[in-house]
């Protein structure tokens, strides 16, 4: 009964979405305030209906109602409650409902939180949101209905893929979707601006917080997925350039570019047309990410759907959404006049370079990801593009990006001079170079590349700290004054400092973990000891343990350093009877500087086990860097200028002082 209510509610949501997609647009065209006023209420009603459907499905998961096909296929009565819930979005049909739920939630936020938006503009943006909603709801109802029944109802479910039963992955899809769908707001605002033919600083101020929030969520989502791959897949790697990873990484690259170009629009009224195009591209890549992962085009853990009809539907959706918006862009963009002029050496130019490099990198990833699909489609054989391709295209583009990233925040808007910049950054460059030489000598690497990576990290972090120091006038004025400057520094400035430092930490982590990782694969009997990077790991014993829905063989390792016990590690090999699958649970000892990573392999003759031990230097810095980027975004989001409604309140409080 509840499932039928959910289904019905989804149909109502589709009808509301159709109203939201059309009536406000017509109203804004005619200038009819009554029709414009419908938009927020349609958005609210739509959210309500989708939420109802979502919770109906969630109810089916919680009570393990196996008469619903979707629950039967992805849940099991013995599964812990967290994975019953995450089972909802661990599959194609359920994840679509989550997608639409987030979309309508954002619609609701614009409808009732966007009080400072002009009503006609808001109506147009909401109408675009409605159109996206129509597409996805129709897709869900026509090809992927999660409420289909099964008669007779089976007694037990098939269970969720055990690899997905993990806390890191439970929240990975929602975070990713918050990012994907968040970029739909930038897209809707861009389309609404194209319809109105006007882009100004106010537009950028509305778009920036949405883009920033979406970017934070996407960064967090990607980091979580990567973290999961690191500890769950048991290979000690954290990024594989897998098409599914690329699918989420491309919107991130474009979104990062958008984040920066929107600043230029707001501060300097330049790059308008480009920013609109970026907003369209970013959301198009988000849609494509959903398409690539959901249609079964890619064969990976994420490719839940194998139904080609769905693929055709999403492809149609993509063509209409991307083609339509690009067409509108082609027609209307020439009307957008650039106002702010700037010299080749200026902060704007730095942002342009950032955008060019990020867009190029994004294009490189796109080609590598889609080429196998393209070749397969034209009958050219089955190929795959391996990680070396992506590394060779991506890394050379990131080097100038990091070099410029350090310099651009130190340049003034409009026009800067290279000599002054050189004087200020000379110390940082010298320090980075010294560190590189020291690293090269110390690690005695054959290749100078790892040392260059370390130098880049030092260069970025040094210049970020230099910039902060100059803002605070550290060491040139009394310390108390610096402190008071720090308090009054805009939150956006703190956010940038934090996020850029995060990038530096991330680069250091990537460099060290790639260059200086130590791997040991061996056969061990209880009592055997292996030495990796100064740690002595003794394989003590191996035994069986039972989990809620799995059986595990668990190894016990004692880790010693110079004879002192550091920790005990318990890697497991789990077997899930319901799916007849086993998973590897790595045991990881984390310090600030490295991870010691132990994996139990397969049993061999005579009570021996194959084991793998990795020493992964600075891997924790990778996650730390990502967290710093997210935190930077979040801090920047709390900046007063971004708070929706803040300028309105100020105007209301002191009407005489404003303007």
């Amino acid at each position, binding site marked *: 009964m509840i499932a039928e209510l959910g289904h019905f509610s989804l149909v109502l949501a589709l009808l509301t979405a159709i109203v939201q997609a059309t009536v406000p647009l017509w109203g804004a065209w005619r200038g009819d305030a009554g029709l414009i006023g419908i938009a927020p209420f349609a958005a609210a009603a739509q959210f309500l209906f989708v939420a109802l459907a979502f919770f109906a499905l969630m109810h089916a998961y919680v009570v393990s109602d196996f008469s619903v096909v979707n629950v039967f296929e992805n849940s099991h009565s013995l599964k812990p409650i967290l994975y019953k819930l995450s089972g909802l979005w661990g599959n194609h049909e359920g994840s679509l409902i989550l997608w639409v739920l987030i979309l309508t939630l954002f619609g609701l936020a614009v409808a009732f939180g966007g009080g400072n938006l002009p009503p006609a503009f808001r109506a147009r943006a909401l109408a675009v949101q409605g159109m996206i909603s129509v597409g996805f709801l129709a897709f869900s109802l026509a090809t992927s209905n999660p409420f289909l029944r099964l008669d007779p109802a089976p007694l037990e479910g098939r269970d969720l*893929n055990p*690899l997905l039963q993990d806390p890191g992955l439970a929240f990975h899809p929602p975070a990713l979707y918050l990012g994907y769908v968040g970029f739909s707001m930038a897209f809707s605002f861009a389309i609404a601006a194209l319809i109105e033919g006007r882009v100004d600083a106010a537009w950028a101020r509305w778009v920036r917080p949405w883009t920033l929030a979406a970017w934070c969520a996407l960064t967090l989502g990607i980091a979580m997925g990567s973290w999961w791959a690191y500890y769950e*897949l*048991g290979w000690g790697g954290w990024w594989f350039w897998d098409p599914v990873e690329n699918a989420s990484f491309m919107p991130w690259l474009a979104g990062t570019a958008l984040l920066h170009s929107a600043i230029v629009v707001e501060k300097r009224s330049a790059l308008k047309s480009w920013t609109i195009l970026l907003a369209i591209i970013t959301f198009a890549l988000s849609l494509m990410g959903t398409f690539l992962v959901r249609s079964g085009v890619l*064969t*990976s*853990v994420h*490719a839940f759907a*194998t*139904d*080609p009809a769905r693929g055709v539907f999403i492809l149609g959706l993509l063509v209409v959404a991307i083609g339509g918006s690009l067409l509108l862009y082609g027609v209307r963009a020439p009307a957008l006049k650039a106002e702010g*002029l700037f*010299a*080749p050496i200026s902060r704007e130019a730095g942002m*342009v*370079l950032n955008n*060019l*490099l990020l867009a*190029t990198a994004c*294009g*490189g990833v796109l*080609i*590598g990801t889609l*080429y196998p699909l393209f070749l397969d489609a034209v009958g050219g*054989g*089955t*190929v*795959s*593009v*391996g990680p*070396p*391709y992506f590394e*060779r*295209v991506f890394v*050379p*583009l990131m080097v100038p990006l990091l070099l410029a990233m350090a310099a651009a925040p130190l340049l003034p808007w409009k026009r800067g001079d290279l000599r002054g910049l050189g004087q200020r950054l000379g110390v940082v460059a010298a320090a980075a170079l010294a560190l590189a030489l020291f690293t090269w000598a110390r690690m005695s690497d054959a290749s100078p590349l790892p040392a260059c990576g370390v130098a880049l990290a030092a260069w970025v972090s040094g210049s970020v700290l230099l910039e902060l120091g100059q803002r605070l006038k550290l060491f040139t004025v009394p310390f108390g004054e610096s402190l008071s400057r720090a308090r009054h520094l805009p939150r956006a400035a703190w956010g940038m400092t934090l996020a850029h430092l995060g990038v530096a930490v991330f680069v250091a982590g990537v460099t060290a973990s790639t260059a200086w990782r130590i791997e040991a*694969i*061996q*056969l061990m009997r209880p009592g055997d000891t292996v030495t990796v990077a100064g740690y002595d790991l003794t394989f003590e014993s191996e035994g069986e343990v039972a989990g809620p829905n799995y059986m595990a063989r668990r190894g016990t390792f004692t880790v010693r350093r110079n004879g002192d016990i550091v920790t005990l590690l318990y890697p497991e*090999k789990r077997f899930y009877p319901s*799916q*007849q*699958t*086993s*998973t*590897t649970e790595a045991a990881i000892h984390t310090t600030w500087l490295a991870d010691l990573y132990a*994996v139990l*392999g*397969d049993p*061999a*003759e005579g009570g*021996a086990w*194959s084991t*793998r031990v990795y020493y992964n230097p600075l891997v924790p810095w990778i996650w730390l860097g990502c967290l710093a980027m997210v935190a930077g975004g979040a801090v920047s989001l709390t900046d007063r200028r971004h708070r929706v409604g803040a300028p309105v309140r100020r105007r209301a409080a002191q009407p005489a002082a404003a303007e």
Partner: protein
Amino acid sequence: MKRKHRRFLALLGSMTLLGLAAALILGAFEDNLLFFYTPTQLAEKGPPGARFRLGGLVEEGSVAKDANGLTVRFRVTDLTNVVPVVYTGVLPDLFREGQGVVVEGEIDGAGLFAAAAVLAKHDENYMPKDVAEALKASGEWRGEEAE
């Protein structure tokens, strides 16, 4: 600086970058495309010179470990042709006899495939498309009905 100069400079910058990107992509493409073969395709076309991927089923009863416990030998089959494979390392969780597998590596003169990686596709239902088709053709298909 005049607007015209500025535009020229911007255009020059973008073009340089685009050329650089194209060079990078083409250069990287040449060396890093991995072709995919089934055992039958390998028998028909002959082995490629470089590293490639081989996909099929792990033949039932073919998995054997060397005395060191880490080197594994098995045969990959598409039920028409068979290729012997040797791999040193720990196998992925989903590696099992009778299941689909993709191995990446090079083949030697004697026809032994030395795998540098055994790919865990993280999906127990995964099977290379060509293998699935070969299985369907030979009536050995045991997976779910095709959609």
